[in-house]
């Protein structure tokens, strides 16, 4: 699909029910134009991962996902030699010259590709999603650097594998720690925050069919109001969508204190937060 201008990007994303603001559209456009990775940062549940998925739907490219976690290493992220198969191969013909065998067992037949290598070797261009990159250790981050800047992977036994088609790379971070300068330097930075009520209302309308405008507006405003409170965990966009669905299922078309008090647990997941919001919004209003 055509990503030739920021507004074209915005339209394309909107056509797959992802409503970008001008910032998101601009960065996606630039990433596509300059072939640079996007580093997306923001609170949980504002649609960071969803952006990569939407891009995959828009471009029709396959999505390859690398979920990061503490302890992720080369053999899980890049590649691994299939040593069982290698052993079998060695045992299969003992008569052969060792040099031949050695040549043979370090060939691509014995290589197990992991997400990063897979993205590089794909015939068709793909979307590579490196999710929650802030969870890996600083040392592991270095694995990504070669891929992000040059789109290539070096395997000592095989040499350097360069991407035949350039993958579009999206990294997400929940900002639990500062990422290394080297990584950040290679990426375009995109901070996604909670949407303003107008955009949230549009998102709700796109995601929850059958929602009345009045209710969507109310939901968006209540969400802002709750996010303004000082809570452990503010409601995310996905939670407001859940809330909208809940209200729809209960066939409620106007939110008042009682409704809010009864359904607050859909939006907030900590008891302390629920109590605080109840005190601020529900009881204060009732009294």
């Amino acid at each position, binding site marked *: 699909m055509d990503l030739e*201008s*920021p507004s074209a990007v915005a339209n394309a994303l909107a056509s797959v029910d992802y409503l970008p603001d*001008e*910032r998101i559209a*601009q*960065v996606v*456009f*630039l990433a596509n*134009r*300059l072939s*640079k990775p996007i*580093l997306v*940062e923001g609170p949980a549940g504002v649609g960071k991962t969803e952006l990569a998925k939407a891009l995959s739907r828009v471009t029709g490219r396959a999505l390859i996902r690398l979920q990061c976690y503490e302890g992720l290493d080369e053999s899980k992220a890049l590649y691994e030699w299939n040593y069982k198969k290698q052993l079998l191969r060695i045992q299969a013909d003992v008569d052969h010259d060792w040099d031949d065998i050695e040549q043979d067992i370090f060939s691509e037949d014995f290589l197990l590709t992991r997400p990063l290598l897979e993205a590089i070797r794909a015939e068709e261009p793909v979307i590579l999603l490196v999710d929650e990159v802030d969870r890996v*250790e600083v040392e592991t981050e270095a694995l990504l650097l070669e891929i992000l800047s040059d789109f290539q992977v070096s395997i000592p036994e095989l040499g350097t594998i360069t991407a035949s088609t350039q993958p579009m790379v999206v990294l997400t971070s929940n*900002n*639990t*720690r*500062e990422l290394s*300068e080297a990584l*950040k*330097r290679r*990426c*375009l*930075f*995109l*901070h996604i925050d909670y949407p*303003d*009520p*107008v955009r949230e209302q549009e998102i709700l309308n796109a995601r929850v069919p059958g929602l009345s405008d009045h209710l969507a507006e*109310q939901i968006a*405003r*209540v969400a*802002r*109001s709750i996010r*303004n409170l*000082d809570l*452990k965990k503010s409601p995310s966009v996905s939670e407001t969508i859940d809330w909208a669905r809940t209200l729809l299922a209960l066939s409620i078309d106007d939110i*008042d*204190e009682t409704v*809010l008090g009864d359904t607050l647990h859909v939006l907030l997941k900590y008891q*302390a937060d629920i109590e605080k919001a109840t005190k601020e*919004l*529900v009881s*204060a*209003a*009732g009294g």
Partner: protein
Amino acid sequence: MIGVLTGFVDELRAAGVPVSMVEAIDSMKAVEAIDLADRVELRETLRSTLIKSLRYERAFDIAFDVYFSTTIDLADPAEPDPGRDDDRPEPSVGDDGLDLDALLERLLSALEGRDEAALRELARTAVDQLAGMEPGRPVGGTYYLYRTLRRLDLPELRDQLLEALIGGESLSEFDRRLIEEEVDARLGELREEIQAEIRRRLVADRGREAVARTLRRPLVEDVDLMHASASDLADMEAAIGPLTRKLAARLARRRKKRAGRLDFKKTVRRSLATGGVPADPQFRHPRPHRPEVWLMCDISGSMATFSRFTLQFTHAMATHFSKLRSFAFVDTVDEVTDYFGAGVDFASALQRVTTEAEVVWMDGHSDYGNSLETFRNRFERQLSPRTTLIITGDARNNYRPSRARILGEIARSARAVVWLNPEPIAYWDTGDSAMGEYTPYCTSVHEVRTLRQLETFVERLTLPSGGLVKRST
């Protein structure tokens, strides 16, 4: 364009944003790919290529406004008639015949209909007519901002807007609150527009570099805690959560890496698998170092903010200490550990401490001498050689006896006594500051004026040596 961009990058660096050479080049490449006439496109392009952390957004926005504002002709109606002074009311009829009431009316309808273009246009008119900007006059943008806002009478505008949006219906408190928040958000937009407009005019008047210099504000970690404005405090409040989380993550990582002493038995046992060759040495898990920390904070007026941030920061790190107790004092001292737990709002907790705990004995002016004496009498016996006592305060004792020797007695019972002073070192021992009398009895004293220094200090506190063994000035 390259010239402007280089200047812009220089300005960002001057404001404390780290911009590398590669990033600057990237931004220039990116700019080639976009429609330069579109200001939003340019802004987001530069933002995504030049700044890589949310912390720098504010600095970026200000610098961008200054460097890439639409240039305006100075011969605008903003031209003042000479000799007009501030107290004389400005004429309420502008050059284009628009009077204040009509302006307000149009503002109201623009706000009501969320018409952004009209809002921008009206903000321009408002600044034109109400700010009374004078070229070359050396006052800051804030002065003009308040002048404009005062003339617009925002509270009145807010009431009218509320009325317009509610439309005479009787609403429940809850609905009303939602609408009020909407109104405040829209007025916030108006304020932003006016501020941007004023900046634009200042730039046209004085040039980019000069305006950028006056608008440059330190990053939130570098704001002086003693002289923070209300908005700075709010920013700090927001920043302290992420800072402590990051510090905790850093400490957790460091802890894991440290290997303990060789576990001989386990190594021998393992060596049986390799035919008695100790190929795989085993190590004991290191016992994590968890110091016991007591905080003793001056919570008298001037010190309250600083003490609150110290308490908040240290309590966020509570899991890294074997025990954490807090004491507060003004002219006498009381234990306040129970007021601060997980998830409490520190500002209101401190408020409660001030009213409920026994921190005032006589007149409510700082008395370090009496506080130390009370502390010794009530708590010294509970100090152990593992306890690090941290005292926060400016040591301004209102010329009362310092009784510094008591601090010496306390120090003998504790592992270390550390003093954090939020005043610049140059001010210590001036006026009623008794810092010099206390210093000899402290293991170390530190000047802690910013969140960054506080973070560094708390991190050192969790180190095995605590960085506290050596006596420094």
